[in-house]
């Protein structure tokens, strides 16, 4: 057999091999060009911002779009971090970052805590009105924030929570989506596991702590990433509910920095934008492994 094999292989002309390989090469090239275009399309604006943040105000003021790093980077970032907008009275970016971080973290933790406990109640216990509760949660999914924003503002303002962290956070702290996702996950936990825990003597709280939470770890991580980015990027609600600079978030801060065309310190704005990018990017990178795991597999 081993002697026959080369006899068959030999007659294949080398010339026939070459065009086939070239065609593959062509396909490879096309895909890579498309991919590169995609990367440029997404990366270019970020690159421009990154480079812009290292030049002085005059360069950008002249209408130049620098694609190479300048020499003012350190100054720009230091100014933005400690002073913010120099031409108008404003808060330093560090304060805004702190406000954003508090808001995003509390929204995320709150959403996770509330949705996982309510999903636990809906999925594992039978009580009167269980389905009513579930549907009530489910239906609020369909109401976008904008629809209920005025009544919400009225309530928050009547409670005197305008310009406070509570006012920023509490209206955003419940998540129907996360509740629904956790409920669906809980329904995949086999009944036998619940019963085994009962036989072992685990009460509802114990079962939640020892079994449900560890099993949900990857889901929690995935939702943490999504919800943190969601919280960090909040725009409309903070815009309405914050009028003083004490609780201004960075997203609002950036918008406020954009004055009239000539009046805008573009270098500072760009440095601020880069700073605003960092926390969500950090969260995604740090939790990437868990995030992907949470989306693709469940440990059962």
């Amino acid at each position, binding site marked *: 057999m081993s002697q026959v094999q080369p006899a068959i292989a030999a007659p294949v002309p080398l010339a026939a091999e070459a065009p086939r390989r070239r065609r593959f090469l062509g396909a490879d090239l096309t895909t890579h060009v498309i991919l590169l275009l995609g990367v440029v399309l997404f990366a270019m604006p970020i690159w421009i911002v990154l480079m812009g943040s290292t030049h002085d105000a005059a360069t950008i003021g002249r209408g130049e779009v620098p694609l190479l790093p300048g020499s003012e980077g350190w100054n720009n970032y230091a100014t933005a971090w400690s002073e913010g907008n120099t031409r108008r009275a404003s808060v330093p970016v560090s304060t805004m970052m702190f406000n954003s971080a508090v808001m995003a973290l509390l929204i995320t933790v709150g959403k996770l805590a509330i949705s996982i406990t309510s999903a636990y109640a809906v999925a594992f216990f039978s009580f009167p009105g269980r389905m009513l509760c579930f549907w009530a949660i489910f239906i609020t999914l369909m109401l976008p924030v904008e629809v209920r924003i005025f009544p919400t503002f009225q309530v928050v303002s009547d409670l005197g929570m305008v310009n406070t962290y509570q006012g920023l956070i509490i209206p955003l702290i419940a998540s129907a989506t996360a509740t629904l996702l956790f409920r669906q996950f809980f329904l995949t936990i086999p009944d036998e596991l619940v*019963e*085994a825990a*009962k036989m*072992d003597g685990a009460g509802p709280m114990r079962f939640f702590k020892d079994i449900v939470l560890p099993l949900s770890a990857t889901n929690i991580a995935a939702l943490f990433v999504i919800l943190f980015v969601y919280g960090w990027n909040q725009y409309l609600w903070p815009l309405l509910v914050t009028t003083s600079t004490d609780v201004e978030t960075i997203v609002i801060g950036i918008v406020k920095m954009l004055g009239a065309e000539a009046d805008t310190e573009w270098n500072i704005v760009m440095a601020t934008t880069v700073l605003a990018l960092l926390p969500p990017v950090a969260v995604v990178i740090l939790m990437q492994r868990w995030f992907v795991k949470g989306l693709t597999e469940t440990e*059962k």
Partner: protein
Amino acid sequence: MATLNIQGVTKAFGPTHVLHGIDLDVADGEMIVIVGASGCGKSTLLRIVAGLETASTGNVVIAGRNVTALEPAERDVAMVFQNYALYPHMSVFDNMAYGLKIRGLPRDDIAARVQEAANLLGIGALLERRPRQLSGGQRQRVAMGRAIVREPKLFLFDEPLSNLDAKLRVQMRAEIRRLQKRLGVTSLFVTHDQVEAMTLGDRLVVMHAGHAAQIATPMEIWARPADTYVASFIGSPAMNLFPATLEEGGHAARLDSNGLVLPFHDGPRPGPAGRKLTIGVRPEHLTPGQGGLELQVDLVEPLGGESVIHARLADGTEVTAKLPGSSYSDGALNVIIPLHTLHVFDGETGKRLEAGG
């Protein structure tokens, strides 16, 4: 180690009655197998004993203590589930130790007990693994280990072998029986597999439509089934059942299919002539010979030393025979029914009719 008494337990899910009053007394250290087709209520009965379901009426008494109103954890019973129900995020050790941790045993005691149970089951080397790194048989052992470390009054097994392949099932079956005898723990074992039931149980409870059709030792059930359901359920292949009528002043039965008269060797059955009967004969009791049933064979299943023969009588009644040897082929075959192997049942109620009764 304890006795178990099930007293008039009924269960209804809404209008559907699943259990119609079960009474069962289990002696200390006894292994009771509850066997029946799916939907007969056997799992429900087990779950009522476990406390995972509540009985509609009736009591469950474990070691003389009425536990009917108690939570599963307070009943001092351990259960092995069909799908093992191991905690996927815990190591084998933690899986076995979890129940003890909740009970607040000292750490050293827990470690000692888990180690002992693991050695008993031959899984001592697997204690650090996660359940998903184990084979089906190993998971099964861990599930058993989790029950053993609790040192419960009662073991409950809910079809624990049905997810294993055939060979492993036979092996685990023997292992469970050996273990149960060695530990001497009173056990309830639910299965739909009659071979499992026959080999494992000190006594069987054959369940049918929410009733305990018969409670007896495996051999007694095989030799003297209480009704036609038990007769056809226990034994493989299933017992042949022929419609017949009472003849000759109660001393014989005439088969409806071919008019064959079978005299009762052990005495007359009560009732008027013409009373409807069902005559049962186990396939392995039929023997080749003239003057009995004239069969038309349509399928032969050779098993090596013996063959299972599927055949019909002239009127289409199906007959199964298990005959020695393997030299059978399709076509005509004559078998006789040895008279001492007859089972006589009432034609209407299906209940067993004893001689002279």
